[in-house]
C-alpha cells in the first residue's frame, strides 16, 4: 500500500494548497493576460501564470539572491517544502527518502534570456548551469537535504504522473521508504512559441470537452506529494491523506504530437491503471480528465472513456480550465486536486463548458458538487510522444 501523506502546490490559482482549493471551490480561474513572461504575445495569448514574481518567490523562500534560481526551481522548492511540511516530516533522512521531479523545460525560461549573450559574447553567469533538467531537482533536494535517491523525468505532459508511478514502484520494490514526487515547469517563451507554432493555443480561456473548444492555455507551477510505505506510516503515526492505489503507463505509438483518433494509448493507460488497482470500472466515482481543450485530445480521451465505461462514464471534469495546461506538472497537480476532492467530499467544476462534443455526448460537471462520498478517482495525463499515464487515488478505508 502506498500512502499519500503530504501535498504541496503552486499554480495560477494559488500559491499554496489552500489557495488552490479556495479558487477551485469558488470557480476562480487563473487564466488571464500575461504579466511576467517576456514575449510579443503578451496581449494576444492568455496563460495561467503563477501570481508571484521570481523576486517575490526568492524572498518568500528566504533564498540567497546571489545564487541562480530559475523560476522552475523556485516553484519546485516552494511546493516541495509545503508537501514535506504538510506531511509533518521533521527529520527527512530518518527513512530512506528520495526525490523524483518532472519537468519539460526546466531552466529554459532563464536560458532563453541569456542564450545569445552566452553564445556571442564573453558574458557568463551561473544560469549557464541551470539549463539542464536536473537543475531544479538538485535545488529541491539541496533545500530539503535529500541525498539518498534522486531522479528527473521528462515524458512531456505525463511527466509528473510518471514521477508518482515511479515513486510508488521504488517503495514497492523496497528501494525507498519515502519519496517526494511531482513536477515543476515555468512558462517560457520557447514553450509558448512552440505550442503557438503547432496552432493549438486558444486565444481565449480554454473550454475543455466543449464542442467549440479552440485549443489549450499554457499554465505553470509545481506540485509535489509525499509518498510513504505502510511501515513508515505506522511508525510515524501521522494520518495519511489518501492512497495511491493504482497506476499504469502506456504508449499510444501513433504520432509524435497527436493522439490516435480512437485513443488507444489513453484506453490502455486507464484500463491498466484500473487493473493495477484491482478495481472494476464501476468503482470509479470521479475522473480528473486530461482535458486540455484541444480538438484532438478531448475527442480521443472521450472515446477512450466511452470504451472503458460504456454508457456509464462517471462524473468527470478538467481542472485545466482553471490552471491552464501546466505540462510536466499536470499529473501531480491534478493528483493534489484529487486528494482535495477525497478529503473534502467535493467535485470541482469544468469551467466554461456549454455544449458536448458531437461524437461524444459527454457532459462534464459544471458546478461544484459538495457532500459527495468519493472512494476512487481516476486521474489522466497524456502527452507528446504518445506518453500516457493514469493514476488511481483512493480514500483510506
Amino acid at each position, binding site marked *: 500500500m502506498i500512502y499519500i501523506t503530504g501535498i504541496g502546490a503552486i499554480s495560477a490559482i494559488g500559491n499554496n494548497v489552500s489557495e488552490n482549493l479556495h479558487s477551485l471551490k469558488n470557480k476562480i480561474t487563473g487564466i488571464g493576460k500575461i504579466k511576467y513572461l517576456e*514575449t*510579443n*504575445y503578451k496581449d494576444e495569448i492568455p496563460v495561467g501564470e503563477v501570481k508571484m514574481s521570481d523576486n517575490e518567490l526568492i524572498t518568500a523562500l528566504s533564498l540567497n539572491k546571489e545564487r541562480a534560481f530559475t523560476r522552475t526551481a523556485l516553484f519546485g522548492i516552494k511546493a516541495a517544502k509545503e508537501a514535506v511540511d504538510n506531511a509533518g516530516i521533521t527529520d527527512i533522512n530518518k527513512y530512506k527518502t528520495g526525490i523524483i521531479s518532472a*519537468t*519539460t523545460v526546466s531552466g529554459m525560461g532563464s*536560458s*532563453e534570456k541569456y*542564450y*545569445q549573450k*552566452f*553564445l556571442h559574447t564573453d558574458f*557568463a553567469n*551561473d544560469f*549557464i*548551469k541551470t539549463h*539542464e*533538467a*536536473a537543475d531544479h*531537482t*538538485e535545488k529541491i*533536494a539541496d533545500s530539503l537535504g535529500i*541525498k*539518498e*535517491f*534522486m*531522479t*528527473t*523525468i*521528462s*515524458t*512531456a505532459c505525463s511527466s509528473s504522473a*510518471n514521477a508518482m508511478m*515511479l515513486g510508488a*514502484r*521504488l517503495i514497492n*520494490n523496497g*528501494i525507498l521508504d519515502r519519496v517526494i514526487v511531482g513536477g515543476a515547469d515555468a512558462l517560457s*517563451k*520557447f514553450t509558448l*512559441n*512552440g505550442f*503557438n*507554432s*503547432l496552432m493549438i493555443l486558444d486565444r481565449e480561456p480554454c473550454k475543455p470537452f466543449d464542442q467549440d473548444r479552440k485549443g489549450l492555455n499554457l499554465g505553470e507551477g509545481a506540485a509535489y506529494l509525499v509518498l510513504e510505505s505502510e511501515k513508515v506510516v505506522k511508525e510515524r503515526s501521522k494520518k495519511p491523506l489518501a492512497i495511491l492505489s493504482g497506476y499504469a*503507463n*502506456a*504508449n*499510444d*505509438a*501513433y*504520432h*509524435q*504530437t497527436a493522439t490516435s483518433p480512437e485513443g*488507444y*494509448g489513453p484506453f*490502455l493507460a486507464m484500463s491498466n491503471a484500473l487493473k493495477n488497482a484491482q478495481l472494476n470500472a464501476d468503482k470509479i466515482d470521479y475522473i480528473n480528465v486530461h482535458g486540455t481543450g484541444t480538438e484532438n485530445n478531448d475527442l480521443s480521451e472521450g472515446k477512450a472513456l466511452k470504451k472503458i465505461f460504456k454508457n456509464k462514464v462517471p462524473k468527470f471534469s478538467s481542472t485545466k480550465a482553471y490552471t491552464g495546461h501546466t505540462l510536466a506538472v499536470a499529473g501531480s497537480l491534478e493528483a493534489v486536486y484529487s486528494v482535495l476532492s477525497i478529503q473534502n467530499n467535493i467535485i470541482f467544476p469544468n469551467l466554461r463548458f456549454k455544449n458536448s462534443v458531437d461524437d461524444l455526448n459527454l457532459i462534464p460537471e459544471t458546478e461544484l458538487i459538495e457532500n459527495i462520498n468519493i472512494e476512487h478517482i481516476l486521474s489522466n495525463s497524456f502527452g*507528446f*510522444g*504518445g*506518453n500516457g499515464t493514469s493514476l488511481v487515488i483512493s480514500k483510506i478505508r
Partner: protein
Amino acid sequence: MVYINGTASLSPQNSLDYNKFLEGIIEYEKDFLQSIKPNYKEYMKPIAARRMSKTVKNGIICSQKALQEAKVDIPDAIIVGTGLGIVSDTEKFLENMLNNDEKFLTPTAFIQSTHNTVAAQIALKLKCHNYNFTYVNRGFSFESAVIDAIMHINEGKRNILIGGTDEMSEHYFHIIRKNGRWKKTKVKNTELLNYTTNGAICGEGVNFFIISSEKNENTYSEIKAINTFYKPENSEEINIKLKSFLNNADTKINDIDLVITGHTGDAVGDKIYYNFLQENFRNKPASYYKHLTGEYQTANSFALWLGANILKTQIIPDFIRLNGNPISKIKNILIYNHYFDINHSFILLSQA
C-alpha cells in the same frame, strides 16, 4: 537474476562492431569528440534520416541492433536516459525564435526537441504500446533507466530495452566551456591522462541494451547491482558507500576482477578516481574509457557496454588499461562513475 542479452553502441570509436572496436583506438585532437556516423541508408529511408536529429537516428539504430541480438521483437518497456535531450532541435527552434523575434516559426524542430523524442520514436517504429519512460537527470539519467529496468524484471517483466543517449552541439559545448567544465584547448584523446589541467574531455554517444529475466545464447553478463549517490562529502563517504554496496550484493572487494572508472582528464575529477582505486583496489586491474568517448551525462552507458563485452569475450584491449596489475579470469566487474562530482554511481556486473 537480471541479464544483458543485447547491446549496441554508437560512439566516437568503431563500437557498432566489437571486433572492429578491438582493432584500435581512433585518435582525435579536437574540442569535443563526435560519434562516428553510421551508414544511415542501411537503417532507414533517406527522408526519415534527413528529418531526424542525430540522437534520434542513433537511438533508433542502436535499439534495433540490441533487439535483434537478443531476439526480442517487442520489449516490455522502453526506457531512455538522456542528460541533454535533443540539443540540436532545441537550439534550432530557440535560435529561430530569438533571431526572428518570435515570428515565422514552424513546429518541426519544437516537436522533435522534447526530451522524450528518442523513446517515443522507438515506440512509434516498433508500434510498442508498453511502458515508455525518459530520465533526464544529468549523470543519473542512464543509471535511473537501469534501476527502472531491474525493477521491471523483479515485477515479472521479461525484456526491457534501455538506452543512454546524448549529443553535443558546437553551441552548447561553447556555452558550457565557459563555466570550466571542458578543457580550454583542443584535447588529444590518446594523451588524456597526461593532462594536469582542470576541465574534462567532452564527447557524446548512444548505447542501448536489452535487459532480460532469462539467459540465452547471446547473454553478455548479469547485472548484479546498481547504486546512485548524490554529492558525497569526501572520499570517506564514497568508500563507505562502496562497502555497503558490495555488502548488499554479497560481494567482497577481492571478488572484483576489474574496475572500470570514468577518468575524464579533469585534474579535480580524476583525483577522486585515483583515490578510490588507491584506497580500495590498489592491486586490481583497472580500465578507463572516456578518452574513447569523451565525457557526457550518459557516458556510463558506454562503460556498461564495455563491461558487458569484456565479460562475454574475456578480452580487455590494451588501450583501455589504466595500470599494469595482472589480469586473471574476469568474473566480476565494478563500474564506478561520477559526473563532475555531482552524480556518483556503482554498477556490479558478473559473468552470466
